[in-house]
């Protein structure tokens, strides 16, 4: 008897772990099948703040069941796609990660006939640097990096990233805790274009960051919200959409955009090679680019939408006139996009960044 029980236990355990490893098995499909969406956390309108629950809406309209999971970093997404045999149908990686995925044949070409709403996408976001022939991507959102500063601590509105190296603000400066964004800022100050950078460029940027370290309070990502909103720090670089959110909380905060441009980043919807529901995935992507849906997502995210129709007809002037969210074309022309950094240079960058922090 004991033997039987333990065999059953072992079998259940093995089965459970196998199921866990193979990820989203499809036993809950709607009438029209399902679509497995893998997105950033808090990156879709979810019914909060009087906004639409976009996923519910899609399920009701199409009868396709959405299995929605989230990740925190592009690297996490990459590792899931590379090292586990889960199947996702729609993913929303950032610019540099898209280049990497295309290079490694990890994306499927889209059938744009199934995505008629692609016509609403602004021209600037159609032939993305990471996908110059527009074969794999439909842009989801975009933004620029900028600085947020506390008016009670910084007397003059900064005009350059150099403000993050200001000795008068020693101990009150925050910096990106993320190699790409930190290195890019340093490279810009060294006069290097961060796209297509080499190891020598990384070395120069690393030297610049070493110079900054003694002036810093901290390297932060999400903690920036707490630091700035509660008036704990003077200045920090961050992403435009989040700067808007922080400024809503603390009226002493203001934004500053470096005059010679910043990083233009975007996330785009793609279908990974492991997809088993390509048509549903295209339906989902198309749905997300319906102008009213894109507008709902914009209102939730505060990251700019590439959807022209949504911008023209569904978004309040208050947002449209905000140069931080929707910078002028002239400003965007001065910005750079972080793509085409080879794997080798990218790892070197990460290693150098860790070394700076570890010293």
């Amino acid at each position, binding site marked *: 008897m004991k033997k039987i029980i333990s065999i059953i236990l072992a079998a259940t355990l093995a089965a459970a772990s196998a199921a866990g490893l193979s990820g989203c098995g499809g036993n809950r499909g709607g009438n029209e099948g399902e679509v497995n969406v893998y997105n950033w956390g808090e990156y879709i309108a979810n019914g909060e703040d009087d906004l639409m629950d976009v996923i519910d809406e899609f399920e009701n309209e199409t009868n396709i069941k959405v299995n929605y999971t989230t990740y925190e970093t592009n690297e996490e997404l990459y590792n899931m796609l590379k090292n586990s045999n889960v199947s996702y149908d729609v993913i929303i990686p950032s610019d540099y990660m898209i280049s990497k995925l295309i290079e490694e044949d990890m994306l499927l070409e889209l059938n744009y006939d199934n995505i008629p709403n692609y016509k609403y996408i602004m021209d600037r976001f159609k032939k993305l640097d990471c996908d110059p022939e527009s074969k794999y991507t439909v842009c989801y959102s975009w933004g620029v990096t900028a600085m947020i500063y506390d008016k009670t601590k910084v007397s003059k509105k900064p005009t350059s990233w150099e403000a993050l190296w200001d000795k008068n603000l020693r101990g009150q400066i925050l910096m990106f805790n993320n190699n790409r964004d930190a290195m890019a800022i340093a490279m810009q100050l060294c006069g290097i274009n961060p796209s297509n950078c080499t190891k020598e460029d990384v070395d120069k940027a690393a030297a610049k960051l070493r110079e900054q370290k003694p002036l810093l309070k901290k390297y932060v990502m999400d903690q920036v919200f707490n630091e700035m909103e509660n008036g704990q720090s003077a200045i920090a670089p961050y992403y435009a959409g989040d700067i808007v959110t922080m400024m809503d909380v603390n009226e002493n905060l203001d934004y500053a955009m470096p005059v010679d441009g910043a990083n233009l980043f975007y996330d785009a919807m793609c279908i990974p090679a492991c997809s088993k529901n390509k048509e549903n995935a295209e339906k989902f992507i198309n749905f997300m680019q319906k102008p009213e849906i894109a507008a709902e997502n914009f209102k939730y995210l505060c990251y700019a939408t590439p959807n022209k129709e949504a911008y023209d007809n569904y978004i309040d002037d208050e947002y449209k006139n905000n140069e931080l969210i929707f910078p002028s074309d002239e400003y965007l022309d001065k910005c750079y996009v972080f793509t085409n950094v080879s794997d080798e240079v990218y790892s070197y960058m990460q290693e150098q960044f860790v070394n700076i*922090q570890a010293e």
Partner: protein
Amino acid sequence: MKSRKPSIPYIIWMLVFTMIPIIMIGFTAFTDKQGNFSLEPFTKAFNYSEVFLKSLWIALLSTAICLVLAYPLAYLIAGMKHSTQNTVIMLLMIPMWMNFLLRIYAWITLLQDNGPIDMALSLLGINATYIGNTGAVILGMVYEYLPFMVLPIYTVMSKIDPGLIEAAQDLGSNRFSVFRRVIAPLSVPGIISGITMVFVPSASTFLVSQYLGGTDDIMIGDVIDKIFWTDQNTGSAISLILMILIFVFLIIMNLFGDEEAIA
């Protein structure tokens, strides 16, 4: 002989979730990106020896402070009425029901500039920064792990046979020598498992230092996390070295007390 079959599920569990991952880490640590044998990950790992030392130092200091604080507390609790003991232990446990990250956020609010502590002390004319330094990290660690030190020591102490203490008193020991000759030696196993339970997690954590520390307080857990983004080989090598260091520490602890105390 007792049947071992009921333990099979646990053995499978250990195999799948402990042994195989460790073997994989070992394998990755000795290979390069192409999967060939290489010692490069270890040469790279030694770039971070300063961080290793600092992490171990912070962990050691936190453990020592925990011990100093926890031992008298455990002694006091063990001497209380039985019902009071339960209440006090309960009070010690309650904070642990809350998510650790939330509690760290609470500390940030307490310690930050113009926070309650800063306000109170500046009324007394003391102006300083209480967050973003190693002191804050150690405070966070001690706060987090103190119950893990108190509980095992208390458990061991409360099980000491009162007859032994009475016998010592009958033989003319005063309170101090009862403590020195009876209670202290008998509580060693509790101390050892307390030290283990505090030192091991605090050597490898990075949350506390990320939230309460400054730019110089990066810990080895943080380095492992970041390096893993792009270089799993070096990440594995660092993890392996950390595991070995902790293992050595456990063996040393083992020499001081009886084996069963090692968690």
